[in-house]
């Protein structure tokens, strides 16, 4: 009884402790700072691009000009390049990432899973610029000497799709950039797929095995239907990553402001154009404003893609 009386004032003192109020306010302020940060990035990029938006109007989005001499700028080519390289990268990365995730969750011996998993995840840790150098000094020569000439000779004359494989084999270009991007996003997609595949209740899989299903049939008719939404979320995460990659793409895409129909043709992306043109733009110039406007567009695109990815992933992975 005496103890209870003695202890009684304590909780109330704890509740009114000034340290508590300060700490809680600090935590909440930090949380709000993150919201502010996102808002500030959007506003700052938009205001920076204001001059270009005003000068070119909505035509900025569909104009394929980039002429520093005449001061005429348009966003069509880099937007096209950004989307095409990212989508092509996914076309290459998704099957590989799926194979890796399938191998890691169902096929690999247990002791072998962790080292392979770690190695694949380390691909995500390699800095972007290293991919650029590796792409430029290793992949580009291989593409120029072997892959592109062979493909051009064999597929370049096909009706309907032949135009995709024409042009001189420089080694650089849209496809090479997509290939490097694919390698960069494989670890993200594979890791997400592996994690969601592991959320499938063992009972479901065991029931299917009990009915005589093969491993692949369990994958196809139990695991994939169960995790479909999250798998798409993982792919969108990879897409979000691929859209904004800068250094690696800058090294290998050829950096030409032209829309080419060939996969081997040079091009650019928003990020590579900004990285390359920025050093040559004066503060306050229309060119700098156009680059900031491009940055704003890229931010909006990646925001949408990443937001979708997160909404799809959230129910399954509690992150």
């Amino acid at each position, binding site marked *: 009884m005496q103890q209870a009386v003695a*202890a009684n004032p304590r909780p109330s003192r704890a509740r009114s402790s000034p340290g508590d109020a300060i700490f*809680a306010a600090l935590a909440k302020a930090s949380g709000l700072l993150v919201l502010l940060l996102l808002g500030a990035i959007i506003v700052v990029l938009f205001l920076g691009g204001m001059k270009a938006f005003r000068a070119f109007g909505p035509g900025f989005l569909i104009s394929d000009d980039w002429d520093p001499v005449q001061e005429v700028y348009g966003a069509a080519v880099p937007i096209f390049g950004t989307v095409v390289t990212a989508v092509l990268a996914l076309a290459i990365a998704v099957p590989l990432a799926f194979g890796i995730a399938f191998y890691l969750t169902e096929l690999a011996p247990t002791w072998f899973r962790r080292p392979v998993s770690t190695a694949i995840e380390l691909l995500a840790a390699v800095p972007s610029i290293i991919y650029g150098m590796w792409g430029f000094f290793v992949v580009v020569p291989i593409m120029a000497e072997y892959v592109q000439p062979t493909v051009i000779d064999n597929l370049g004359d096909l009706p309907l799709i032949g135009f995709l494989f024409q042009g001189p084999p420089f080694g650089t270009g849209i496809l090479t950039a997509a290939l490097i991007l694919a390698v960069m996003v494989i670890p993200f997609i594979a890791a997400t797929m592996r994690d969601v595949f592991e959320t499938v209740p063992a009972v479901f899989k065991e029931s299917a095995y009990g009915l005589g299903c093969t491993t692949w049939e369990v994958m196809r008719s139990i695991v994939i239907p169960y995790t479909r939404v999250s798998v798409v979320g993982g792919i969108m995460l990879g897409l979000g990553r691929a859209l904004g990659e800068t250094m690696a793409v800058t090294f290998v895409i050829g950096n030409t402001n032209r829309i080419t129909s060939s996969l081997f043709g040079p091009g650019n992306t928003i990020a590579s154009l900004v990285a390359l043109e920025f050093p040559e733009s004066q503060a306050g110039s229309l060119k700098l404003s156009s680059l900031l406007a491009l940055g704003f567009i890229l931010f909006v695109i990646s925001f949408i893609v*990443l937001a979708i990815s997160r909404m799809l992933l959230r129910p399954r992975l509690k992150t």
Partner: protein
Amino acid sequence: MSATTFSPGAAREANASRALGRRRYRTNAIVKVLCVLATIIGLAFLASILFTLLWRGVGGLALSVFTTSTLPPGSHGGLLNAIIGSLIQTLLGAAIGTPIGLMVGTYLAEYAQGSAVGNAVRFVSDILLSAPSILIGLFVYQLAVSPFGGFSGIAGCLALAVIVIPIVVRTTEDMLRLIPSTLREAVIGLGAPKWKMIVLICYRAAKQGIATGILLAVARIAGETAPLLFTSLGNLNWSLSLDKPMASLPVTIYQYAGSAFEDWVQLAWVGALLITFGVLAINIAARLLLRRAK
């Protein structure tokens, strides 16, 4: 039973089902082989990158790389200023971003369960985690470079700090959530105020996990190039002042790798070797730490 088994129709059926079985097993085998192949291809990419770095970089490794600053082509320069600049900006960026990320993670795990603001903060932090880093460079350029009339090391630190925040938020929140609520209740039951419970007990219990997040953040920003192009710009001279352009390893690699000079390209490979193995070592260390934490 035997009568039906030997009827021609059932035999055909049995044959058909055996054929179906064969096809199912063949498909299964093919898919398995393809998956193993995909994994080998993934690992081959990593091996190819590491091998290329070793092959091109090790030859240029010399003591002078660490004792000499960048010099004009042909005069046996090193990477000293770039290495020091990278260390300063990485550590300072992490030092600015970590406390903020830690507090945000604490807010999410300890104060904002289920609240709308908390969900919004978590959502935005996740977006920032994957947002293109080049845009963070442009953002800091507009805020901290353009108004003050020049590129500066501190602007580089700020850009890197923005990248650090969401990484630390994610791991801090995850790790604090792993702490059993009975531990919290015990501490509160002893009469400790909530902030003491968090700082003295929760942080201590989640120490290794939080350290993992910080290490991963350091590894990530150590290799960042794009945001630094617009903020600290790079500097080929020796300079330690934070209000002037500052060299960094990734930006120097970028400048050197694209140059036409043999010795500069060689130095770029040495720099690439250093940064990659540094970053991978930190990553592996972080993983080992995390495994112990869990």
